[in-house]
């Protein structure tokens, strides 16, 4: 079958999209894009609108306004077949074998029944489930369930992966499996959107980040760009008789001791210079003074608090 391929089309383009459920605006004027060969971290507190936005990209629900393009077209049948989705609420048919379930899911994604079955067998064997091909899902362990769900997401080699809280509930072995999978999919040119509350995972895996709160965009860009924007937020100081309470220094909002040094989080509007002058004025002996690169967790908390 001669089918047209559109490698040049942007995987996802979202422009000024809004969605309301009753009186509550869940997504408000949101814009972003997802590029081929990158992992976009989709961050935000619970109820921020992440899942709703993902479902709109998948055409499970429709936006009230704005424009969504997936591979250059409106989300629909053709687009859905190029997407692999791992939802936050996920399960399997309990009285059906893993192989039959995967064959069905693969067929829905455009594979022939034979191809879907063949690929499912390969992947199940690769992930150590070769002995469980014909076991019903109800007979599999939780960890095995998770592997089958991950296989269902990539069975048809999608060009776009949408992973909603993928690390939630995973055991360490499957978490590593998923990390490897995200990296391998990105490396083969697929675009990956991944929502997570785990800032360490986001920091380790994501090329760019989108932070939303109350359906609005709060932060958007590469980790380096975002960090630069929050670079003046904290200072790490090594010295003697350093103040340990934030109230002792006007420019400091929070203070914490860590590995023989003090980490001062600056108040909004205060600079590292202000703190240095304060410490010098107090006659404190300072052996090291360094503007700290904020952790993603700190950025998240500050950005949401500010929003």
């Amino acid at each position, binding site marked *: 079958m001669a089918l047209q391929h559109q490698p040049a089309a942007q995987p996802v383009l979202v422009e000024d999209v809004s969605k309301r459920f009753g009186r509550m605006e869940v997504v408000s004027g949101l814009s972003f894009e997802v590029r081929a060969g990158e992992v976009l971290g989709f961050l935000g507190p619970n109820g921020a609108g992440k899942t709703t936005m993902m479902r709109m990209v998948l055409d499970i629900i*429709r936006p009230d306004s704005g424009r969504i393009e997936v*591979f250059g077209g409106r989300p629909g049948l053709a687009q859905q077949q190029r997407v692999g989705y791992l939802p936050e609420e996920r399960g399997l048919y309990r009285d059906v074998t893993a192989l039959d379930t995967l064959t069905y899911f693969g067929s829905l994604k455009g594979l022939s029944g034979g191809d879907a079955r063949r690929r499912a067998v390969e992947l199940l064997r690769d992930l150590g489930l070769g002995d469980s091909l014909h076991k019903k899902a109800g007979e599999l362990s939780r960890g095995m369930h998770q592997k089958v769900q991950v296989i269902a997401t990539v069975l048809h080699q999608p060009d776009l992966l949408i992973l909603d809280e993928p690390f939630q509930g995973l055991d360490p072995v499957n978490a590593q499996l998923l990390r490897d999978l995200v990296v391998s999919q990105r490396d083969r040119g697929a675009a990956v959107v991944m929502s997570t509350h785990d800032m360490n995972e986001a920091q380790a895996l994501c090329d760019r980040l989108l932070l939303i709160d109350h359906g609005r965009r709060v932060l958007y860009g590469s980790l380096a760009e975002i960090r630069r924007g929050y670079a003046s937020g904290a200072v790490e100081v090594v010295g003697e008789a350093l103040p340990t309470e934030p109230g002792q220094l006007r420019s400091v909002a929070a203070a914490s001791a860590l590995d023989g040094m003090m980490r001062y989080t600056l108040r909004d509007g205060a600079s590292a210079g202000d703190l240095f002058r304060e410490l010098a004025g107090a006659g404190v002996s300072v052996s090291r003074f360094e503007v700290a690169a904020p952790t993603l967790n700190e950025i998240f908390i500050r950005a949401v608090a500010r929003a």
Partner: protein
Amino acid sequence: MTAASQPEQPRRSFLRLLAVVARRDYLRTVRRRGFIFGTAMLPAAMIGFTVLSTLFAPAMQPGPPPSLSVVNESAVAIRAPAGMQVALLDRAAAEAALGRGDITEFYVIPAGYPADPQVARVSGASSPPGIDQLQRHVAQEQALAVVLRASLVAGSSLPPSVGERLIHLFTILFVLSIFITSGYLLQSVTEEKENRVVEILLSSVPPGPLMAGKVLGLGAAGLTQVAIWVATALAALPLVVERVPALSGVSVSPTLLLLSFLFFVLGYLAYGAIFAAIGAIAPGTREAQQYSGFFGFFAVIPLIFAGAFFADPGSPLVVALALIPLTAPAAMLQLLAIAPEPPWLLMAASLVSLGTFALLATIGAARIFRATLLLYGSRPSISRIISAVTARG
């Protein structure tokens, strides 16, 4: 990159996805133990009846219906149901035959029949009857009762009580079939919702083809079951009639079969759409069954008012039940079975009413499907359901 990740033409995909969903749901349903057991029940009952009647009946078997010699002095036209031998004679011919020994007795229906119900038996025997003769008399009188009742009901070859019970039974089976088939749809939707599979499905198949595929696949499963039942019933009918003479004359016309099929399909689509929407709305299986039970009440209303159908098939109540979509399937089946000729105008109006409802219910259900299916464990508000149904596009 493989061809799997490349887009197909949307229309082709729509039909392909519909077929994938339909095939899978059909096969999954017909392979279930419950389905196989339920489907085999009726044929098993038929076989059981035949075997039991063969094993235990020989001692009581009266053999073929006895031949009757009847002198009819009344104005009632005597009609002999199929398979019964009735010789109508005038009084003189009957007495002559009795005198010659050609017959051993004859029955005289009085001029005032049925107001005067005393049917006389004239016999040539002078000695007290033996056991064999008494048995023959009982069989003859039972056969005569069948002949007289059939003759009193113009256009019917069955005694009304048996006919009514049969129609009632078939209507119950018909409604049951619609419910069992719609129940597959309800079960499928609630199961996928409870197993948390539905979101993966909706990310691969839009609600339209997903629901259409389910309706098609599970409807085909239901039709398979009904077809097996009907085929068994038709095949077993001659055997059953042979053992139950009161059923002689029962036949199912192709027109009745065709119209029943039409009402079955539309009835299934109407109830199936409602049940699919219930499956999407209900937080769990138990709630889904409770809600669907409420709609089950509508389906059996024509059975509750079955007496009105036999008393006056043209009454306003009967017409109303035939036109209300949710009562139409059972009402029209009863009407079609009772009426000597199908009431074409009412039937057309009923089909239009039911068909329109089925179409609108399917569209509404697909919208409810999309709007509420992912609300795990919670029930959507009435306003949300209404806004989903009335939403544009």
